[in-house]
């Protein structure tokens, strides 16, 4: 968080003019980032941003979306080692 700036919604003690408390904001933000928010929740989120000049939710939302994007781009699935399935089956068969 940028230091020396006025408090904004990235601060836990920020008093949101829209009346959204910190925990509620965190929950809503993550639902938006993960595409699991309802249409109504999206309305609340975006209208809050438009109405508040201190709102940093959009900024945070964009950053978290970029984190998701970087992870997806860089951490590609690793191939399963050959023979692992046979080893699993062998271990199970051997235990019976």
């Amino acid at each position, binding site marked *: 968080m940028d230091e020396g700036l006025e408090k904004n919604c990235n601060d836990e003690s920020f008093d949101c003019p829209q009346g959204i408390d910190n925990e509620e904001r965190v929950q809503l933000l993550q639902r938006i*980032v993960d595409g699991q928010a309802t249409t109504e929740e999206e309305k609340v989120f975006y209208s809050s941003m438009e109405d508040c000049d201190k709102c940093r939710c959009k900024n945070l939302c964009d950053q978290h979306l970029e984190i998701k994007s970087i992870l997806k781009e860089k951490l590609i699935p690793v191939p399963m080692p050959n023979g692992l399935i046979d080893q699993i089956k062998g271990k199970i068969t051997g235990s019976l």
Partner: protein
Amino acid sequence: MSGEDERHTIYSQKDIQVFEEELLPHASAIYNFAYRLAFDEDEAKDLVQETYFKAYKFIKSFHKGTNAKAWLYRILKNNFINDYRKKSKEPAKIDYQDVENIYNSDEAQETFSGNIAVYPFKETIGDEVSNALNALPIDFRIVIILCDLEEFTYEEMAKILDIPIGTVRSRLHRARNLLRKKLLYYAQSRGFKLQ
């Protein structure tokens, strides 16, 4: 189920069929989860085998048609956390063969300031994103992997982790904020706008 009961469990052809048709197809995904947690191929293979072994032992408690993948992830996560806790409590181990190799090598002439304790995780992959993820506290790492790489829903994650959905989201928020700080330099160099 007690140890006594387990020894007398009789597995039917149906149990084997459920195991092969519903559980084994997730092996590749399960291996990836194990690898992201352990960051080591051998440890990941052991985790996967142990997970399937446990799943088989308790196959009768699995309801066909339910979320087999989430069930396997939950078993693997519990195995990993148990091992992780055990390792965290153990005193630091020294691999004396490594010490001997270093002592006998040319590197011995150079100042060695590294810590030779063997940690549960190895940072051998020179990849900033993997290292940043691996540097997160374990609970944060798990939620990121489940959500951003495995694309589980909050509800599924809550079941796998055995925590309320609200806690899943709070944990994700904190994990992403931590990752954001760790990836700032990397992101800027790649043209991302994390700042």
